[in-house]
């Protein structure tokens, strides 16, 4: 009798669990919070927290619980953390992922459990093509898109040949393939470096100079971008061969790159000075909330991810079991994105504009990024045909 009583109690507790869980929106956030690239993860977290502030810390009247997990920039750790969030925390959404290799390792866990995953940065080609899923959305881009825009700009500039350098992991390969897909000149060399441990690029820079290429293109996110520009300038190559980049100069690396970054063009889907009202408010409030820091595209994408989640939860009036309805709502991209309005393609990757950014001194005398031109309008990734969702 007594046993039965306890059993009943335990069952009641077990049953009560999901009921309490449904009273809040649970979000798992996987990003890098330790090591040299922790600054990127911090920027994403800052922006996500700011988005929650702007939403009044509530989504459709429910409190929001965010669990931040550190992937240490390692695919195996990212996968473990994703498993933890899905299986033991039972989150409703998973957001984040800076690194394509970490996202690819974690993807299956989220998709198999039918948990919505929103990539706020990584955009491996597989995710846009074969591995696309109804439960996965991106608030960033597909990796090839940004460098492809850079390739178009290089054509405009009449560049005849290029030497490509990038890190040897999923995103590095996509990035160099992206430039090659649009650049009309000759690719005279292509070098991959060990990622993320190789920080000395002397061998690659020497080869680039000896190749007599007219230009160099690199993709080095985070601290590696600082190191590359340092070495590019110190070797005197800056005066000889112009550099074109994707994701190498941003607001986190600029304070360290300083003058080395002046005159180095980059392509981006978001720049801090985009003129829409939401973006102005975001940049202003970010600087107010985090004095001394400036938001980056990583942060802007994380901010948009919070808005995307909000739109989905509001559309189903907080009933998080209505996954199909939430998916249908998210496909509309029915929120005010910081980059301006965009549409989703069939593979849940944004169809969006890409801008040319340049490094300038702003009103405070500090180096910052500025939009110079729109390189391409409403660009869709080239892998969407391979996605089985129509």
């Amino acid at each position, binding site marked *: 009798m007594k046993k039965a009583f306890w059993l009943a109690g335990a069952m009641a507790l077990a049953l009560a669990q999901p009921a309490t869980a449904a009273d809040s929106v649970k979000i798992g956030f996987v990003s890098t919070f330790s090591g040299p690239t922790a600054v990127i993860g911090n920027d994403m977290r800052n922006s996500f927290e700011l988005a929650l502030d702007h939403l009044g810390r509530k989504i459709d009247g429910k409190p929001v619980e965010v669990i931040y997990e550190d992937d240490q920039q390692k695919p195996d750790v990212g996968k473990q953390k994703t498993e933890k969030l899905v299986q033991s925390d039972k989150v409703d959404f998973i957001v984040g992922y800076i690194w394509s290799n970490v996202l690819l390792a974690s993807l299956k866990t989220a998709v198999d459990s039918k948990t919505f995953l929103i990539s706020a940065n990584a955009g491996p080609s597989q995710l846009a093509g074969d591995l696309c899923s109804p439960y996965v959305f991106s608030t960033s881009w597909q990796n090839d898109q940004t460098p492809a825009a850079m390739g178009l700009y290089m054509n405009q500039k009449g560049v005849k040949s290029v030497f490509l350098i990038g890190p040897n992991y999923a995103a590095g390969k996509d990035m160099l393939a992206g430039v090659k897909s649009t650049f009309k000149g000759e690719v005279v060399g292509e070098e991959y470096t060990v990622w993320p441990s190789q920080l000395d690029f002397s061998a690659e820079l020497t080869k680039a100079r000896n190749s007599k290429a007219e230009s160099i293109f690199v993709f080095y996110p985070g*601290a590696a971008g600082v190191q590359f520009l340092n070495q590019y300038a110190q070797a005197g190559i800056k005066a000889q061969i112009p550099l074109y980049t994707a994701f190498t100069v941003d607001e986190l690396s600029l304070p360290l790159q300083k003058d080395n970054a002046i005159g180095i063009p980059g392509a981006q889907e978001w720049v801090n000075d985009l003129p829409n009202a939401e973006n102005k408010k975001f940049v202003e409030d970010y600087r107010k909330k985090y004095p001394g820091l400036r938001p980056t595209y990583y942060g802007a994408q994380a901010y948009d991810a919070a808005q995307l989640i909000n739109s989905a939860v509001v559309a189903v009036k907080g009933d998080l079991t209505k996954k199909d309805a939430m998916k249908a709502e998210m496909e509309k991209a029915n929120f005010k994105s910081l980059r301006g309005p965009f549409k989703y393609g069939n593979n849940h990757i944004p169809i969006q504009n890409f801008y040319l950014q340049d490094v300038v001194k702003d009103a405070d005398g500090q180096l910052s990024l500025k939009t110079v031109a729109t390189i391409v309008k409403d660009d869709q990734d080239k892998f969407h045909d391979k996605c089985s969702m129509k």
Partner: protein
Amino acid sequence: MYLVVEQLLNGLQFGLLLFLLAAGLTLVFGIMDFVNLAHGSLYMMGAYFAATFVAWTGSFVLGALLALGATLLLGIVLEYVALRHLYGRDHLDQVLATFGLILFFNDAVRLIWGPAGLALPLPAWLTVPVQIIPGVYYPAYRLMIILVALAVAAMLYLVVMRTRVGMLIRAGASNREMIGALGINIKLLFTLVFGLGAALAGLAGLMQAPILTVQIGMGENILILAFVIIVIGGIGSIRGAFMAAVFVGIIDTMGRAFLPDLLRKVLSGAAASTAAPALSSMLIYLLMAIILVLRPEGLFPAAKR
């Protein structure tokens, strides 16, 4: 041809930098029989000190010298406060304790300097490329690293081989208990050697800082290479560390420079591009494995008993 010369220089520069790190490590490991995983943290501290002092004094050379002194001092204090209590212990205890120190230093740096890292800009006279032979330009700063490291290696050689302190160091490497029994103040010697090792690591860190960035955990990856070098060179041997460091530097750089093109002759372009970086980063470990099989003592082992 010029390409080979330039890549050789790149390899030499990298190797000499590794030597500075490995020299301190091999001294401490060889003489005190002490496994110091926190050696990479001293490398990091050297870089942070330099970035701070250079910004403070406005002079690169003066800042670097101050940073060198500060790392020497830090090494001595560290030895006196924490590490000397671990000499008699098992290697595993030492690994555990010095691993703890890595965490301590990383978080101390995060508290003091913040998580974002620092930049150490070079003075203008070091940012120009120098023409070394007609048609070959080489960054002045990398050339300076080569020269400074060679000078330090020569000085180390003189100190170790030609002075009384050096004699004690060599004696300590051969037989620790014996020189203690002969009435040498072994504690003081250990403190000095550890301080010297710390200063060398700090020098490596501050010289590497303008090329890379000054950031938390910067000493951890490179420390693995330093361990590889002292294993190849023979534990406790400065000469071994020097030769092995130059080998490793050149093999690593040449592998990165020429392996991709060689592989492209046999493999398809995409496969070669993917395989080459992985393979070239394996080369030095392959070298270590071969040496371990053929000469487990290392190339130039310190004379034992």
